[in-house]
């Protein structure tokens, strides 16, 4: 039982670390503000969720777990609110989302211009 709990905690913490790194890569690599908002939202739900639940399992049922649960609940409620505020602010600032058509045209330019660093 103890072993099972530890294995589950390890798996959750490793999954949380993985998704945190993936989300940060998305933040650097994605082409558009809106897609970057999506990528930053990933760490708040999947990354923080897995990491904090894994730490809760590891810590057992103590005051530490309760604090971790409070952090998790707070991130869980505020992160979508912040993402919504971001999308609203970006849209009302007049920045249009990058559509598939524009993206293809951009790729075409890149091919004509030869290998370019992005």
């Amino acid at each position, binding site marked *: 039982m103890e072993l099972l709990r530890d294995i589950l905690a*390890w798996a959750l*913490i*490793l999954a*949380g*670390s*993985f998704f*945190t*790194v993936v*989300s*940060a*890569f998305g*933040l*650097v690599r994605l082409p558009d*503000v809106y897609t*970057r*908002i999506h990528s*930053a939202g990933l*760490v*708040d739900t999947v*990354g*923080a969720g897995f*990491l*904090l639940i894994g*730490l809760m399992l*590891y*810590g057992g049922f103590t005051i*530490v777990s309760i*604090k*971790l649960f*409070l*952090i998790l609940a*707070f*991130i869980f409620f*505020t*992160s979508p*609110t*912040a993402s919504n*505020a*971001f999308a609203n*602010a*970006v849209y*009302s*600032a007049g*920045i249009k989302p990058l559509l598939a058509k524009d993206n293809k045209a951009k790729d075409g330019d890149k091919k004509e211009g030869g290998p370019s660093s992005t």
Partner: protein
Amino acid sequence: MLFAVATIAVLAAMGLALVRAFLGPTVFDRVLAVNAFGTKTVLLIAVLGFLSGRPEFLDIALLYALINFISTIAVLKFVRYADLGKPTRERDGEAMR
């Protein structure tokens, strides 16, 4: 070992978020990167507490999560209206007069 791996992963993610904060073409990219950086700071404090075997720093992480959200909303409002005290709608302004 496990917590060392998690710490390194969170630190790498924080570095990548800083890269976006420096590169960001628009101001929203920068604010978004700083917001993501703050969330990862909360995770880093939580993991570091377990790494050092003294998970008493979680109060700081909780406080940081609260401040991070409020400051993001405040900065977004400041970017849009260039004034934190200004009402966000005309209707509200009339009601206040």
